[in-house]
């Protein structure tokens, strides 16, 4: 850089001022504009704030979750709202797109809490984003319900005050399938092949540990990077190890990749029992694979065909709150051009309902009261049971196991909400 022209101190100072001013004005103007983009809140509403992934890696799951939350909000507001101190409040939603990026979480949640004045919070979708949001709930004293972050580590590696879990923890995802294998085919050898991302890795490794602890034999244990192109070598190796059952998977892509490549690598004999995370619950799993999908099972937090009901709640001595599964499904369909809610929609909608119920039952808008009520209540809603342990983890909700049978998705476990029995062996290939 050349030295500044000699003998021109006044213009130099002027330009320093201009440079500083330009930067400051740039930052100030855009920040102020962003600051004032506050969605208007109505008096007499309870504002529930959250971020959700409308773009980025989780855009599909996030959008489904948002639709579930909106459905729940719609139901609450059209069924008397939330009654506190004799007054009925509507629920208003204050949400932003977090782009599936954890770097956006802090800025958005501080905005939600401080600018927008949200009284209660929902967590973002996915364990990573939930863990980024959780410290803010404790720091700024707001209750936060997790509907999309299931990794046990969120609650077991540290203590949380205000973050509670609505869905079943990740360690339980494949437990139903493993228990069924133990009860019906205890000599089967298990192969575990799963994606190495946060959730799939945790869920499958927990399942492996559990399987071994109850005496099952796990003969193959391999993870693969989530963006893999080819799993033929892994499937061949698993078959060579003598496995009869396959558990694991990760997300939709690799679930489908596994099933497709099973046809070319693991045949004669094919695996007898398959349980894959996430992919199996999608309707497109069956439309893409056709007959190959038959008798494949997969764990799910919820399906629209489960039979939780007020009478079931009554027989268990529990309070019921909210729509029945059928009512929720129908309302969701009305609001979303006939679409069927996925389990993301269900878990997210349930989190809002649970919150509304807790506020109502504690008869208070105060964080401490509502958190205490969440910690003590044991209810049932369309999503299943809700009860927390002392850490805030979910203990009463059960996963369901679904299985594709003759082109239709059936719930096969647990038996009290099932509409079909689990078929064995796998016949699809």
């Amino acid at each position, binding site marked *: 850089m050349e030295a*500044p022209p000699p003998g021109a101190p006044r213009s130099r100072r002027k330009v320093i001022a201009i440079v500083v001013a330009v930067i400051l004005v740039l*930052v100030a103007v855009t*920040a102020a504009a962003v*600051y004032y983009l506050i969605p208007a809140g109505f008096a007499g509403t309870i504002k529930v704030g959250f971020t959700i992934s409308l773009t980025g890696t989780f855009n599909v799951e996030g959008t489904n979750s948002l639709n579930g939350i909106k459905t729940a909000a719609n139901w609450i507001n059209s069924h008397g709202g939330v009654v506190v101190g004799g007054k009925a409040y509507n629920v208003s939603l204050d949400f932003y797109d977090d782009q599936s990026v954890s770097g956006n979480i802090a800025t958005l949640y501080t905005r939600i809490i401080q600018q927008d004045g949200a009284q209660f919070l929902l967590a973002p979708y996915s364990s990573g984003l939930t863990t980024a949001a959780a410290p803010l709930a404790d720091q700024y004293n707001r209750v936060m319900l997790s509907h999309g972050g299931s990794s046990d580590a969120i609650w077991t*590696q540290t203590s949380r005050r205000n973050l509670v879990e609505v869905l079943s923890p990740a360690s339980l995802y494949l437990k139903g399938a493993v228990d069924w294998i133990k009860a019906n085919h205890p000599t089967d050898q298990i192969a575990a092949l799963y994606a190495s991302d946060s959730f*799939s890795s945790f869920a499958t490794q927990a399942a492996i540990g559990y399987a071994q602890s109850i005496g099952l034999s796990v003969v193959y244990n391999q993870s693969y990077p989530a963006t893999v192109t080819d799993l033929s070598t892994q499937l061949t190796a698993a078959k060579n190890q003598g496995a009869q059952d396959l558990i694991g998977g990760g997300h939709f892509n690799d679930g489908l990749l596994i099933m497709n490549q099973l046809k070319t690598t693991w045949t004669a004999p094919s695996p007898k029992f398959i349980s894959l995370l996430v992919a199996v619950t999608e309707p497109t799993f069956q439309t893409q694979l056709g007959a190959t999908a038959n008798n494949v099972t997969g764990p799910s937090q919820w399906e629209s065909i489960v039979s939780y009901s007020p009478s079931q709640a009554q027989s268990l001595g529990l309070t019921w709150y909210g729509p029945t599964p059928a009512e929720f499904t129908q309302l969701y369909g009305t609001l979303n051009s006939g679409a069927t809610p996925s389990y993301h929609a269900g878990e997210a909608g349930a989190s809002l309902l649970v919150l509304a119920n807790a506020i109502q039952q504690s008869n208070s808008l105060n964080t401490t009261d509502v958190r205490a009520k969440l910690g003590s209540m044991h209810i049932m809603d369309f999503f299943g049971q809700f009860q927390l342990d002392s850490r805030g983890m979910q203990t009463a909700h059960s996963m369901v196991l679904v299985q594709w049978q003759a082109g239709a998705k059936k719930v096969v476990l647990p038996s009290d909400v099932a509409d079909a029995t689990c078929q064995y062996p796998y016949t699809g290939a």
Partner: protein
Amino acid sequence: MRLPAFRSLGPTIWGIGIFLILLGVSAPWIPLFLLTLLIGLLISATLAYSLNLITGLTGYVSFGHVVFMAFGGYALAFGVGTLKLPPVAGVALGAVVGLALALGIGVVTLRFRGVFFAIATLVVAVAALYIVLEIKELGDGQGIYLNVGFEPLSMFYTIWIILAIEIGVTYWITHGRIGYGIRSIKSDEDAANTLGINAARLKLSVYALSGLFAGAAGGVYAWNVSGAFPYDAFNLIFSLRMLAMIVIGGMGTLLGPLLGAVAVYIPSQFFLTVLIGFEFIIIGFVVVVIALFLPDGIVGTLRKYIPELRGILE
């Protein structure tokens, strides 16, 4: 090494200095949400200046700079989670890890020129993700979960100090003898070597510095998001954002990375509420236009077309 005399400090560095001081002094009174926004901005600026050192000033385009940020983040996560260090110590650990990693990677990859260097850095960043996925101590695929509370002021001042030092280092490099050496490497490395400049050692030192600051920024980032997760930490989007910032601001300039960071980061917050999904369409388009028609970025183009600014705007 003599520090340049106060009087001869250019207007640009004065301007930046005043801006930073104002920010630093007013921080405790800034509303919470704006404060967290500023933390994100300062992290982005630190990363931009870090890439500017090796790419803007020395002319070695790196696509894999995210690797330093990621390992800095993991260093913090490991330091705080396993070694139970306080977060600021974790950030320092991140800086050290970044420095060491840059030395290790640079010793090999800086032997390659131009596009081969770019591809080599990209490959290292991609391979690093696959390797970290298998390291149990770093949480393998599951990542490391932290909970150190949320203290925006501590985070702010940490990154503020890092950025201030980094800008100071950038100024010292560009105005000192090292600056001549680096700029000669950028224009013609072989000629520089024949002139007696030890290009290999210079490049490596600059790369090491850039790794240090990127590692520190990564540490603050991990602190901000309470964890280190492989697919999130090694996301190539970070490399792309850094590059976009210095291209838009002006590669190799003193003000460029800061302007670029503001130009890329602040509007990105808009795209979380309106025009969802359009952020990178616009950034991509702007980068193409700038690369083809205004290759010197905002600062460089201003300098080129407004002669009065040449002595003042760097």
